[in-house]
């Protein structure tokens, strides 16, 4: 049980006075729940998710599975961990491939979240699996986003569709639409559309993302979110769900020391599965998401 170190230590303190009593009083449980709340807030889990979550844990902690336990602290941590893994999704979902290729994957998210880098990672990973992905430069906003995608495509050894120069020139909806025809002609079986970063509060740009989606009817829309994000994860995730909707989540920059509470927030608020973890700047720093590892990380090892 050493894996749940920090929270276990905190809870052990809370439970210190309890030894020999055998049964948890409501006051004991409340003190415990406050510790859990604190640990989750330190990990940047969104407040409304924390409230919901601690409510459920409290209920279970008052039940018989804890009061009879030899070590109530560990038992409670176990419950917390189970609940976390449940919300984060039991098993990572794989990409849904279209019955009639090409499979279309659209990327969306805040500025600087890691979309363009992910396009490279995803395409390299798919190419290694025998696919023939095409990257589409539909971020025509950010300075030199098109060049960046071209460089990344070169590094990944995949094709890129970039008919417009960008830097404010060209219509991303049109580019996305043309890309599908291009992919069919050239027999690319997967199309990955890179889009501009946008804020949840930017209605106009959100509308543009929705229009790209409408134009290409993607099989997957992946919402890329930075593991370092704080309480704003909820507002932003809701805005993207309402604005474009997404089918899955990718958590980026997990190679740092952010506890990544956003993972829990986004999964819980949107009900969408976290599919991949991005763990570095290199194109191979990418893996399917592991809910159990993430749970331990949020609880702080």
């Amino acid at each position, binding site marked *: 049980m050493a894996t749940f170190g920090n929270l276990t230590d905190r809870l052990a303190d809370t439970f210190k006075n309890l030894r020999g009593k055998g049964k948890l009083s409501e006051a004991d449980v409340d003190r415990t729940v406050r510790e859990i709340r*604190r640990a989750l*807030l*330190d*990990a*940047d889990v*969104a*407040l409304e998710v924390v409230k919901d979550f601690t409510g459920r844990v409290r209920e279970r902690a008052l039940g018989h599975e804890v009061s009879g336990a030899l070590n109530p602290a560990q038992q409670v941590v176990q419950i917390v961990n189970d609940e976390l893994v449940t919300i984060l999704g039991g098993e990572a979902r794989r990409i849904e491939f279209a019955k009639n290729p090409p499979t279309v994957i659209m990327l969306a998210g*805040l*500025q*600087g*979240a*890691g979309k*363009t880098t992910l396009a490279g990672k995803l395409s390299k990973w798919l190419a290694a699996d025998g696919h023939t992905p095409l990257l589409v430069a539909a971020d025509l*906003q*950010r*300075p*030199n*986003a098109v*060049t*960046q995608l*071209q*460089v*990344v495509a070169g*590094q990944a050894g995949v094709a890129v569709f970039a008919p417009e120069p960008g*830097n404010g020139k060209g219509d991303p909806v049109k580019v996305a639409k043309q890309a599908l025809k291009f992919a069919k002609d050239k027999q690319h079986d997967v199309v990955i559309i890179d889009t501009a970063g946008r*804020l*949840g*509060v930017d209605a106009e740009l959100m509308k543009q993302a929705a229009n790209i989606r409408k134009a290409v009817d993607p099989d997957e829309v992946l919402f890329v979110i*930075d593991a*370092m*994000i*704080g*309480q*704003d994860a909820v*507002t*932003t995730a809701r*805005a993207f769900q309402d604005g474009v909707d997404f089918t899955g989540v990718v958590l980026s*920059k997990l*190679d*740092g*020391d*952010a*506890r990544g*509470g*956003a993972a829990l927030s986004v999964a819980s608020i949107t009900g969408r599965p976290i599919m991949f973890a991005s763990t570095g*700047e290199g194109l191979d720093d990418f893996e399917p998401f592991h809910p159990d590892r993430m749970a331990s990380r949020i609880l702080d090892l």
Partner: protein
Amino acid sequence: FARNTIDADTWSGLEDAMISADFGPDITDSVIEELRASVAKYKTDDPADLKRMLRETLEERLARLDPTLTLSARPAVVLVVGVNGVGKTTTIGKFAKFLVGHGRTVVVGAADTFRAAAVEQLATWAERGGAEIVRPQQQGQDPASVAFQTVEWAQRESIDIAIIDTAGRLQTKSGLMDELGKIRRVIEKQTEIAEVLLVLDATTGQNGVAQAEAFIQHAGVTGLVITKLDGSARAGFVLAVQERTGIPIKLVGQGEGINDLTGFTPHVFVQGLVG
């Protein structure tokens, strides 16, 4: 603050609001404790008083440090650092424009020789901002040597201000953090560094403090820049950063346009936080 007397709900509402603005549990507790004492001292039960006290406390705490940029050296060298994707390159474009608008000559140095198209991106911003640019002479050139050449260019051409872009790096990567130290040392052999600006993204949560501490240690940060304040994130974590590190916020970014950069005003910032 909807009720007309201060009761338990007022306090828990305040706590929720502060947590949701990313102040973090520690600062939230300390501010609430302080406010409870004030409320008792002034014997008020008016939520409007409480809100005013909250605003004053935050403003006062944020205003303890001096946000003025020190750019009087010639050339004044500004090094821009931070984790990946926070807005360093964009901020440099805006800052260059701001300085050029005030009659200064500016050169930017593309010492991010790592990220795909980082040099081209900076070149676009330099052009928009009316600054010159020093580029690496070959792919993957040592960033410290690009920084050196930038400062050398500024000295030779009598350019007022040299701003050096660096690659984003997570504060936990020791090799990359050491590289920053090297860039610093190389420049310091030429001239004193006027400002080392750490860029922090407003959407960041409690990790912002860890970022600041590590960059201060490795890069000798002299000022903070908070970007993306045009979004829904309130960036309450910067209070913890300022108080733990003693480094002031000097600039604020609020958009992707070249004019979306301002100085830091505690009053305006707190207005965004508290309303």
